[in-house]
């Protein structure tokens, strides 16, 4: 692990590429979706060439999102099991968020907040895809009963909202945790960062190389 100058590889290039591809697609899906979410956001449809183009593109962007996210999720699946250390971490979550000094439990590669985010996105992207199919005019919507379409359109909006809030939290948490973004852009983090935030993972990584 410890390559020159004490950096640890956190995310290999394939994961980084996959993550940023999902991120770009997510932004496109969000901006195009918000245009239909509330009139206050309709101006965003101008970014996609107007209302009809936004309506045409959004569902296809969603399908790309589903595929790209599924690839990322299958890569990260194994790191997202909740452990006892995670539960201890959760008890200290408030102190951690307020930057109080805490003895960090021996958590692995991800903390429980990240694991919840993973589960939320997994569930919501699934719901967004299924409800998105039901309301997709003119290809699929006519195949479903009007009440199912009504329900799907509401569920799609709510799932979209939850997803966007989850991503706002994700972006902020990454920014707030100094050194984390480097892990996803350059792929490496400092040993000090790993030890501070993920002691269990740090120990595992140091064991492997010594």
């Amino acid at each position: 692990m410890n390559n020159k100058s004490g950096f640890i590889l956190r995310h290999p290039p394939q994961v980084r590429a996959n993550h940023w591809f999902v991120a770009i697609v997510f932004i496109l899906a969000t901006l195009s979706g918000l245009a239909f979410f509330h009139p206050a956001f309709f101006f965003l449809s101008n970014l996609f060439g107007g209302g009809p183009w936004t309506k045409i593109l959004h569902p296809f962007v969603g399908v790309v999102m589903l595929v790209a996210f599924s690839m990322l999720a299958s890569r990260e699946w194994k790191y997202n099991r909740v452990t006892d250390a995670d539960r201890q971490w959760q008890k200290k979550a408030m102190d951690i968020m307020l930057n109080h000094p805490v003895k960090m439990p021996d958590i692995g590669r991800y903390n429980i907040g990240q694991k919840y985010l993973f589960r939320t996105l997994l569930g919501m992207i699934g719901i967004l895809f299924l409800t998105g199919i039901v309301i997709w005019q003119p290809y699929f919507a006519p195949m479903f009963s009007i009440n199912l379409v009504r329900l799907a359109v509401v569920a799609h909006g709510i799932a979209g909202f939850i997803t966007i809030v989850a991503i706002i939290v994700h972006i902020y948490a990454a920014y707030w945790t100094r050194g984390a973004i480097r892990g996803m852009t350059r792929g490496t983090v400092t040993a000090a960062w790993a030890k501070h935030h993920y002691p269990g993972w740090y120990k595992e990584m140091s064991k492997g190389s010594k």
Partner: protein
Amino acid sequence: MVQQSLNIERRSATTTPSPGVRHSVEVAKLIDISKCIGCKACQAACMEWNDIRDEIGTCKGVYDNPADLSAGSWTVMRFSEVETDNGKLEWLIRKDGCMHCADPGCLKACPAPGAIVQHENGIVDFQQENCTGCGYCITGCPFNIPRLSPKDHKVYKCTLCSDRIATGLEPACAKTCPTGAIMFGSKKEMITQAEGRIADLKERGYQNAGLYDPKGVGGTHVMYVLQHADKPELYSGLAKDPQLSPLVIFWKGIAKPLMSYGLGVAVLTGIMHYVTVGPNEAEEDETEK
């Protein structure tokens, strides 16, 4: 009919008031089902005035032709043979099409600004140039009226001949109806007209004759005189008490404004957290054991 320009009362996906200084008379079309002979002249007149030609369909073994509304058929006659209480067979023929609700579910559901407008005279009109083809209006309509065109992915329905009315003409269907079953005028006049006709029908043994102007959608600007107003469902499933779907009301009225604020709050919370608590930094000397 008074000549009137079409002032806009409401626009879809618009949160500020529409121009509302001028006022015009509320209009209505009154369809007296007890006078309808099912000749379909109204369908032909609608096609002719609006220059729409539907695909030639196939015979379904019933009089309904075309079988359903479509982007190219904005009104259809629906024929139902009904056995009434006294064992009498009645042929109930209903001219189906947009009801021009005072509280239009399509307009409420539409996310595209100005794609659906409600004129002050009560006409609900689709402005196809603003339509994105999302089909939300279809989910909003309690009468199952709007139809998405497979050709251009825009939604179409009866305009109540808003273009004719703007110049003081009556709708094409009303103009052509040979029995006078379709009448047009101010909503007030039409209600008075209906009352006279209903009294007539009652005298002739239709005790439950009445006006169909459902309150669940704030009343409509297309009204029916029904021989059996107590059972509107006899008329090819006309809704007894049409309402906007609670899902649509929740979605557009509550969930979306609330969630829009929620997104703002989420971003603001992040900023406030950062400026009050500060970043979460790992000390570089922590690795020293």
